[in-house]
């Protein structure tokens, strides 16, 4: 009983810790001045909304390109991770420990170093300032997480059900799709969401690999945070979080529906 109450308190406090800053950010989107110690802003403004919708950054275009880019990275990343996980967890591939270690390597190298090194490589491959280059770089950033997630679920799910399906006469593809995929689904969803949000929030790598030609929401948002324009930074942050949540919601519904109809 006591335990339950304690857990509830922790839950409420955690929720508040997430909720309150979000509310503050939302208030900041229309704030002109908010000096200490006022509890509420002293004056309000609509300049942020004006800038958002009528400014020189084309919001719809930027949103679309960010979402498309992140979705592409999420799907590709999860596919690669799924294949890697199957190779190391189910089939006895040679050097599988080396593979799983190598998958985590990008996490060990600082982002700036990584981005600059990769840029030289991209220029040599004539992929700098292209969407392909940006997707590749984002993939490298997202894959460690995707692979770790997919390895865990794949190891837990195993291939016993698939074998069963095969014994019952299903082909390899059908046994994988019908027997394993539904069990892997929670992992696939986490991997997709993780890769999506990583790609969505990349700043420095997008800047270097895309050369400023590939525009994403993060590229517009970060300069305003750095320059201390709190109102503008807040409104872009709200758009950033809001659009990511909407995409997650759609993705989740889509994937669930896809599985149900199977």
């Amino acid at each position, binding site marked *: 009983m006591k335990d339950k109450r304690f857990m509830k308190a922790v839950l409420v406090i955690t929720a508040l810790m997430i909720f309150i800053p979000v509310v503050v950010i939302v208030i900041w989107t229309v704030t002109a*001045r908010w000096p200490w110690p006022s509890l509420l802003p002293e004056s309000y403004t609509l300049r942020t909304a004006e*800038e958002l919708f009528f*400014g020189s950054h084309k919001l719809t275009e930027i949103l679309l390109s960010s979402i498309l880019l992140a979705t592409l990275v999420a799907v590709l990343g999860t596919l690669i991770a799924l294949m890697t996980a199957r190779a190391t967890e189910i089939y006895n591939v040679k050097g599988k420990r080396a593979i799983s270690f190598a998958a985590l390597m990008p996490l060990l190298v600082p982002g700036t170093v990584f981005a*600059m090194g990769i840029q030289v490589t991209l*220029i040599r491959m004539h992929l700098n300032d292209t969407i392909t280059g940006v997707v590749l770089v984002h993939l490298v950033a997202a894959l460690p997480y995707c692979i770790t997630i997919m390895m865990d679920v794949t190891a837990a799910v195993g291939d016993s059900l698939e074998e069963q399906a095969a014994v019952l006469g299903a082909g390899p593809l059908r046994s994988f799709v019908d027997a394993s995929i539904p069990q892997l689904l929670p992992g696939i969803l986490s991997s997709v969401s993780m890769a999506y949000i990583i790609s969505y929030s990349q700043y420095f790598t997008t800047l270097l690999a895309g*050369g400023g030609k590939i525009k994403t929401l993060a590229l517009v948002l970060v*300069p*305003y945070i750095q320059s201390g324009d709190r109102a503008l930074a807040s409104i872009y942050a709200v758009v950033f979080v809001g659009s990511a949540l909407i995409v997650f919601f759609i993705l989740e519904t889509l994937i669930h529906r896809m599985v149900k109809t199977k």
Partner: protein
Amino acid sequence: MKKRLLTILLMLAMVVSMTACGGKQAEPESADLSSAGWDEIVEQAKGTKVAFYGWGGDENRNNWLNGTVADYLKENYDIDFEYIGMDINDILAKLTSEKEAGEENGSIDMIWINGENFYTAKENGLLYGPFTSQLPNMEAYVDLDDPETLNDFCKPIDGYEAPYAKAQLVMFNDSAVTPETPKNADEFLEYCKANKGKVTYPALPDFTGSAFVRNLIYEKCGWEQFQTMEADKATVKDAIEPALEYLRELNPYLWNEGKQFPADSTALDQMFQDGEVVMNMSYGPFSVASGIADGTLPETCQTFVFENGNIGNTNYMAIAFDAPNKAGAMVAINAIISGDIQLTQYSELRELPVVDQSKLSDDEKAAFDAVDLGKGVLPQSELLTHRLPEMPADLVPVIEEIWAEEVVGK
């Protein structure tokens, strides 16, 4: 910044070692451009795209460049002009990689740059030039003998960049909170004593904080001796000793007793807006007017400078060594230094123009005079009569280093 610079240098060293045998250099079009006539350049620029890279944190400037300037270039020269926000450190990192990889056709045409960054970029061959003598508007609008046209932070420009806008350090406070405006270093010390714990400046190497400290050094040690000083740590330290003494004397009255300083001017801006400190400073001489217009600053804000003058410098536009459209960049730069565009920069962004008043026609002069700068600022004439030159670019990091050792928490 210094850390970033160091990172870039280390990176450079690494990249060089990796690419020692790769990469060949060729400059396809630059050879004929340098001898080309202006009409030829304009013709070549017609129907092309120009990408201008620079700091993207100012919404007004972004809108002005992508609006007013872009429209002007499209209409008059059939150029599609785009401004892309990127920090100068990132721009230089990008150019460095491109140089090392032997790229001949990059993506950056024009760069917004000055000071140490210009010095480093020019030394490392990241810029294209010289080109400014080919721009007709340099002759038509800019004072070619002005030290700021010839030198950037005392380092020769040699035609590698053209002036863009003038900046000048100003201080400001809210007259409703503290009506007094310190006129010199001694009055500033008194001001800090009277408002104990509510005055500070951004930690060096922040651009603005660094300029403010240099300004106090000028107050205490004069400015002339630094113009030709060698960037030797012992020499510099000897020369600025009285100022160091003064800065240490300030510390006990500053915010957090001078044990800590706000990380950058952004942090200080927010502290001032929130009422945590009573005085702020800016490199944009008319930024108070923009703040009042935006509603982020109260209407009672007032700008002030020291009676002996405040540091001013110019920021510039340069062309990348691997710019895909050098002709277009030259046409765009030429347009931006014209009286028309400088006037819109003055009226829309409230930036000090780089045009020489004596080269303007009467109509143009009248148009500049008619600009309403807004509230809380000093007139252009007062700023220009209280303007002191910058120190040599290589002294700046030395002073920043000495400040960190001798002033913080002392």
